[in-house]
């Protein structure tokens, strides 16, 4: 028999779920208003704010920057992170036990401290362009995801299969791509998605790295909200939510989310 939580606990949980979801519903409602002001319930339904934001040059170009930075930043992080995860799982005796903690440092250092330090110590010091700065910052943000999530899927991989392939004559590199990689594919995809979404939403690091003319969408939104208070931000928020839902749905369809999130 399933134990039911106390009625008070269930009521309180209902409140918590409402607390989590209602604000998102309210944004959806506010984005559909046909009026000029942010109100809920909306005054008449229209999609005017959606067409408005899709014509805003600064939203579109910053969104493109965000996509480029998130894609390549996460890509670089996987490129350096997957070998690390592999080495940590495969050669437990070859590396000291504390070694893996190096790759969790980006989680420990408050993002805002990292962004400021990167700006001061690297970007200004070597006079790097904004897009390079953003790529470096977002690579660092994504590295813990690459190492941790790929590492988790490697921890269930039986390296005997790899040794078997090598003893049958396959080169180590071919073995990695034909034996190891297919087995950790879902881990790599999960790492990519989580890091990508984190990067796409990042404020605290990008804040220090964006410059004149080049900005990421969250920074552009932040600046916009501080100056104007109209339904356009609600519309952008809704578009971002649908993008997130679409990404998750595609992964769910092609892989099964439960398999990926394992």
């Amino acid at each position, binding site marked *: 028999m399933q134990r039911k939580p*106390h009625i008070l606990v269930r009521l309180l949980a209902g409140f918590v779920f409402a607390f989590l979801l209602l604000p998102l519903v309210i944004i959806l409602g506010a984005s559909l208003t046909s009026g000029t002001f942010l109100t809920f319930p909306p005054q008449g339904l229209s999609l005017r704010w959606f067409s408005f934001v899709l014509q805003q040059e600064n939203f579109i170009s910053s969104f493109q920057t965000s996509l480029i930075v998130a894609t390549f930043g996460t890509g670089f992080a996987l490129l350096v992170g997957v070998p690390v995860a592999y080495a940590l799982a495969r050669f437990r005796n070859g590396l000291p036990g504390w070694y893996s903690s190096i790759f969790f440092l980006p989680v420990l250092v408050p993002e805002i401290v990292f962004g400021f330090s990167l700006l001061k110590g690297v970007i200004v010091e070597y006079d790097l362009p904004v897009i390079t700065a953003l790529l470096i910052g977002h690579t660092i943000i994504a*590295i813990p995801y690459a190492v941790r999530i790929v590492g988790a899927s490697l921890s269930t991989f039986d390296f005997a299969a790899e040794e078997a392939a090598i003893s049958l004559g396959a080169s180590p590199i071919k073995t990695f791509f034909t034996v190891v990689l297919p087995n950790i594919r879902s881990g790599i995809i999960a790492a990519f998605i989580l890091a990508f979404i984190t990067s796409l939403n990042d404020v605290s690091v990008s804040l220090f790295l964006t410059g004149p003319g080049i900005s990421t969408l969250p920074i552009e939104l932040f600046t916009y909200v501080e100056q104007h208070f109209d339904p356009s931000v609600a519309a952008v928020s809704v578009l971002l939510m649908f993008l997130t839902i679409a990404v998750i749905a595609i992964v769910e369809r092609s892989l099964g989310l439960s398999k990926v999130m394992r």
Partner: protein
Amino acid sequence: MKRQLGRSLPLLLVLPGTLVVLAFLVLPVLGTFSGTIGPAGNRLALYETFFANSNNMRIVLRTIRIALIATVISLVFGFVAASVIVRTNGFLRQILLVASVFPLLTGAIVRSFAWMVILGRNGIINSTLMSLGVIDQPLTLLFTEGSLMIGLVYLFTPLAILSLMGVLESIDESVLDASASLGATPFGVFRQVTLPLAIPGLIVGGVLVFTGSLAAFATARLLGGESQKILPALLHEKAMVSFDWDAANTIAVVMVALTVVVIVAAQYTARRFNPVAG
């Protein structure tokens, strides 16, 4: 030859990743640390100046207070929601899980903005209360300690739920049944069985929420504003508005120190409650 490669292979594999983290994270942050060392004679001069300013001191204390309260509320919310999720099956469970995780996938800007719509001068609460005739003047709900707290709790409750689901799921139901059949009240079961078993999850969740609150710049600015400034906003202001990099360095070190203290305290607590896991 082959053996040599075998021995250096692990190092070769971790080298690029290590260099990236060292060059772009560790060294710059160490640079920030060393930037706070004062001139010979008084190495702590910058800290003395920083803490001598009563406004800075107030912001530090406010940051700690708000982060602590937000942590406690998020953990309570997370505990309640997680304990219902782990006792639910099938489709409803999926729905509840998505409801808990989805806010996590939207950014801090979107989530803080939602509360601006709710709490603002012409926000939902004010316009509802005014149209009901309860108030004549809009209440100041935004840019208060309350709005900042709500924003942080909203930001981090999903993390608390996820941290607590694992531990709550692993509690054997027969243990709960046993203590109930031995005469424990529902509250007694909670206090003497469930809560102690959930401590590892509470600690992990607590650290995530507290350290997250220290870094929540967007929420701090959009919901706390100028009147409820906390450390991340102060760091940004010193670094990018007044270009007082000495002060910004100092704030950065204070923030890292707070993070480290919390993590060490959490590890100590975890070890006390569970000597095996330590």
